[in-house]
């Protein structure tokens, strides 16, 4: 009897993983928690409100669009929660709440559900949400609030506006002052910036958790950050302080660990991942060094997302045993 149970004859696949979409998404949410806590500490209760509005709008938008399109519901897999969290992490604390909801709706409805829901989006939904908001409300999206100003400021919404350290370090070359933040402050996230991008330690902690749980492979984050580091080292003529500010400033850590590693919009093969991450790094550095914008992580990830099908095609592994001569024929098929 026991033997019979072990000898099940069925069509492949025979080996199944116990991983579920929901389990993976829960792991990502756990990995985002340190950054979430850091954002609330540095930017106050309003950060939590923005995160709740963003997550709430994403989940409601996903529920309603699936309902209208008469498709099975997918809110149970928590992917909308992650989109909402990542979108909120990409927004400044002073932004109006209806703008947050608008970005969430664009992310879920236009980018994700119009293209078929989870696993079908051609670019990262949260990043498009951010880019749409950045193009629509340039002033509101680049109004930075100094950390902890929510404690001593009378008008909590206004806070104290402050330049982002990345803008300062770029202005340095043109005769500006050094960023007010020291490198140690940059590391713990004591700086102006988007909600979730400031605390590098919390983000790296989340990244290590994801890698340890084998949710993401370290290839993309390491290559991405490494490429930026090499280019910035050359651009800064070996100036390590400049390099450190570039790596810790802006949304590089958030983008490299949580956005560029999105399953749907990053390549599968190892070679493909390397090409993808190097492309992200080069574009980010080029936008930061030569572009009009101080920050280029979101645009570079989106551009590389669009290139992923081509990268996949170029790095498609050869079927085992295919002789060299037939390689072209196999590709043609």
């Amino acid at each position, binding site marked *: 009897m026991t033997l019979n149970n072990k000898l099940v004859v069925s069509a492949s696949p025979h080996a199944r993983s116990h991983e579920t979409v929901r389990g993976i998404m829960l792991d990502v949410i756990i990995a985002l928690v340190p950054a979430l806590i850091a954002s609330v500490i540095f930017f106050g209760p309003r950060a939590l409100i923005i995160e709740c509005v963003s997550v709430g709008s994403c989940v409601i938008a996903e529920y309603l669009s699936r309902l209208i399109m008469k498709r099975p519901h997918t809110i149970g897999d928590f992917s909308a929660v992650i989109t909402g969290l990542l979108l909120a992490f990409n927004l400044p604390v002073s932004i*109006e709440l209806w703008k947050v909801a608008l970005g969430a709706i664009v992310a879920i409805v236009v980018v994700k559900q119009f293209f078929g829901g989870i696993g079908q989006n051609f670019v990262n939904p949260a990043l498009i949400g951010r880019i749409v908001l950045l*193009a*629509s*409300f*340039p002033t509101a999206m680049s109004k930075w609030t100094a950390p902890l100003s929510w404690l001593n400021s009378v008008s909590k919404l206004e806070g104290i506006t402050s330049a982002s350290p990345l803008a300062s370090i770029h202005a340095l070359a043109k005769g500006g002052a050094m960023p007010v933040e020291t490198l140690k402050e940059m590391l713990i996230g004591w700086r102006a910036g988007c909600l979730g991008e400031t605390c590098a330690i919390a983000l790296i902690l989340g990244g290590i958790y994801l890698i340890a749980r084998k949710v993401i492979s370290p290839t993309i984050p390491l290559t991405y950050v490494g490429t930026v580091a090499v280019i910035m080292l050359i651009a800064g003529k070996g100036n390590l302080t400049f390099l450190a500010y570039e790596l810790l400033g802006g949304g590089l850590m958030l983008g490299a660990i949580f956005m560029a590693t999105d399953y749907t919009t990053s390549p599968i093969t190892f070679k493909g991942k390397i090409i993808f991450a190097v492309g992200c790094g080069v574009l980010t550095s080029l936008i930061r060094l030569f572009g009009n914008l101080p920050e280029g992580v979101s645009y570079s990830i989106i551009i590389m997302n669009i290139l992923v099908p081509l990268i996949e095609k170029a790095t498609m592994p050869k079927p085992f045993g295919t002789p060299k001569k037939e390689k072209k024929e196999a590709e043609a098929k």
Partner: protein
Amino acid sequence: MAEKKSLGKEFSKGIIIENPVLRLVLGTCPTLATTTSVTSAIGMGISASIVLICSNIAISALRKVIPAKVRIPAYIVVIASFVTIVQMLVKAFVPVLNEQLGVYLPLIVVNCIILGRAEAFASKNGVLASAVDGLGMGIGFTAALFVMGTIREILGAGTFLAGFGGLIGNNFDGFSIPFLNSNPILIFILAPGGFFVFGLVMALANKLAESKGKPKAELKGCENCPMAKICNVRDKVEGCDKKEVEA
């Protein structure tokens, strides 16, 4: 001639079922460029419609005179003449519109809706049917531009019909939308927003056309293609009926 029977149909097909912008996806460039405000959308729609009707009539009347091999240059000459007339009239009587449309006004010459209708309809049908077809297509084009322009201007600038007085010669400056006026969602008047709105309105038009019992606009092989006579793709494509080409 079976023209009279189908005149009503020739007219109404251009509005939704064969709407040039939303169903045939022609003239996309002027559509995206001029729908940033309702005023310029209406101006563009009307100018292009006038050229379309006139060129349809002229080309239909000349269809037996124009040799098949040089018909495209001949059509372009006809269309360009009407565009020049329209441009001169606009410059003289509505200079505001001329400034708003800029280069897109002379570019009506190469608007593929006009050349497309000349090639696909006017060159095969009588003068009256062609005029009605032009009118229907023109109204369809203007309506599509108006809908897109309305959405984009209200959301992206918080106004409606701003500067419309310039078209009709008074000081009317449109309406201001209360909340959006101070918080415009800029992306809607930028190119990406234009594509978003274009896609959504196109989906809506498909839905409307489907509800009228017409499935998605599709090319029915070579028979709908205006280039069928001179095109030799059929010889290379499997399953193409070679007899049709010879006939």
